[in-house]
């Protein structure tokens, strides 16, 4: 964690801070020597209350996740008889079973293939369209821009029924490349919206210099503009990665072949069939397996993730 000024996670028993009169010794008094000018009762009760709420919510967020990890090491019997106790002896074979027999490895591979393909495609096509729309004047520019970003506001489920038949007619139904193309198309609105704004903020002089030096438009784009746009590309790339990795509705409708299921779909499928087979521990192992990579990636890259996910909403 590369955060400054982060004390270790507050222990749950630190919740009630009522009686604590002061912050642990103020090491240095501030420049002005001003130590808490107003220390009213309001401030203190508010503090205890707010800390309590903050800790409570952190607890509510972390508990279900820890519970899932714990459960994934239990036997089926333990899951049903003692949902909250620690596993008597950790059952590592749950994980092996989920990975192999329950096809988690296949779902992982499918997801990696689909997201790899669609993320590459989204970034390439999205930045090309955004660059042209941001940097060139031509008839229909505004229209195309609004056509693209209009896609952000309509419910995908409405288009899903005809989309199913479009894919069917193109022989793309239940194929990974069909899913890739669909992901790209549905990621374009936000990508174009975000990158158009980003390309507008880049200085024009560098591109002009490249053009005068005899570079073609395409070459200018790939060798000058794209490298300059890297921060924007990373932000929108993370946004798209999470969205595509976690996609559930599109594959549920467009990809029903059991061989080609992606992670989220595969897990739901497992949960349904597990109801009959009763391998709950294996299912939990699968759930945790799907959870950990994104959580780990988030903790490592949390600054970029947060910047990427919030950049769009904050102008």
């Amino acid at each position, binding site marked *: 964690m590369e955060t400054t000024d982060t004390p270790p996670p507050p222990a749950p028993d630190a919740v009630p801070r009522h009686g604590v009169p002061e912050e642990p010794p103020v090491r240095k008094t501030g420049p002005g020597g001003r130590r808490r000018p107003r220390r009213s009762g309001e401030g203190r009760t508010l503090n205890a209350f707010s800390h309590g709420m903050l800790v409570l919510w952190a607890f509510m967020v972390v508990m279900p996740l820890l519970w899932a990890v714990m459960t994934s090491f239990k036997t089926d019997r333990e899951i049903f008889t003692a949902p909250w106790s620690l596993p008597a002896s950790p059952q590592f074979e749950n994980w092996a079973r989920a990975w192999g027999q329950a096809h988690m490895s296949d779902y992982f591979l499918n997801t990696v293939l689909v997201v790899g393909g669609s993320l590459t495609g989204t970034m390439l096509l999205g930045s090309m369209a955004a660059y042209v729309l941001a940097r060139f004047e031509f008839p229909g520019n505004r229209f195309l821009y609004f056509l693209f970003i209009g896609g952000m506001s309509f419910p995908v489920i409405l288009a899903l*029924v005809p989309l199913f038949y479009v894919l069917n007619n193109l022989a793309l139904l239940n194929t990974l490349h069909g899913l890739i193309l669909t992901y790209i198309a549905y990621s374009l609105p936000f990508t174009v919206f975000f990158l158009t704004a980003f390309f507008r903020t880049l200085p024009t002089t560098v591109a002009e210099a490249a053009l005068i030096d005899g570079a073609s438009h395409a070459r200018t784009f790939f060798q000058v503009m794209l490298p300059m746009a890297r921060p924007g590309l990373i932000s929108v790339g993370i946004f798209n990665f999470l969205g595509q990795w976690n996609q559930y509705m599109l594959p549920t409708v467009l990809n029903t072949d059991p061989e080609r299921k992606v992670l989220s779909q595969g897990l739901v499928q497992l949960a349904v069939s597990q109801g009959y087979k009763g391998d709950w521990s294996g299912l939990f192992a699968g759930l945790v397996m799907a959870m950990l990579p994104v959580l780990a990636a988030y903790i490592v890259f949390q600054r970029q993730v947060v910047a990427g996910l919030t950049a769009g909403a904050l102008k």
Partner: protein
Amino acid sequence: MHHGKYRFIAGFLAGPLALYTVFVIWPFLQAVYYSFTDWTGLSPDFAFTGLRNYERLLDDEVFWKSFQHSVLLVVLVPLVTIALALFFAFMLNVGGRRRRGAAVTGVRGSAFYKIVYFFPQVLSIAIVALLFQFAYNPGNGAINAGLRAVGLDSVQPDWLGDPDYALWSVMAVLVWCTVGFFVVLFSAGMSSIPLDFYEAALLDGASRVTTFFRITLPLLWDTVQSGWIYMGILALGAEAFAVVQIMTVGANGGGPDYSTTVLPLYVYVKAFRDGQAAYATTIGVALLVVTLAFAAVVMRLGRRERLEY
């Protein structure tokens, strides 16, 4: 030169535009068209039936139930989520006790809270829904076991199986997984508010609550509004679909006695289970109308003079 420019523009736009048209625009236009036909989706033949699907919609009880649930979702879920997120974000940025001479600071450990709160946001909604489906299990789920552990043996609701609780249980999950995103979003907005505003207000003797309503909220209003619309669209569409479809697997999809069915789920059921593709797109059009109406209402309510700082 000019020739080259237009060739370049066309070349760069052709790919994205083709993909977008075929997979997004075209199906979307088709959907509206199909809503005026009797297409089943199973055979290529269909006839134009005018407004018949829309008339049928008016008499369809399940549609009205889904409609009510979707409206409830779009009103309550963003309201609760945003209120909680504003409270947490305010505490994390402004709620701390004064130290190091700064007029306002966040509480201790605010960076840690921001990281933790964001966890659910990076998880797939399908995983979240599955997890809570187990937690809600009446007999041996974590929640009821927790209630037993604290001595509440008599309080053992069948969360997802009881029509009175099912929808609320589903909504709680939606709130759970989105609060973190808004905490981080609002925190980013709050940290750009100049500190002198707070200093001045505190010198004048304003309480924290006053500074929140008089300074923070008005200056954050644009972010709150766009966040509200974003959240509403999720609560009407994809997120609600996933949560309801996975968690409440009643015989008809959508919980006991349609108690949790929502518009996107009803579209899905009609199109892919009942073979009524045309009617499904009609419900989809209704969903579009609700979505646009919601966005318009939020924009209208939120119209204020823009504050520059």
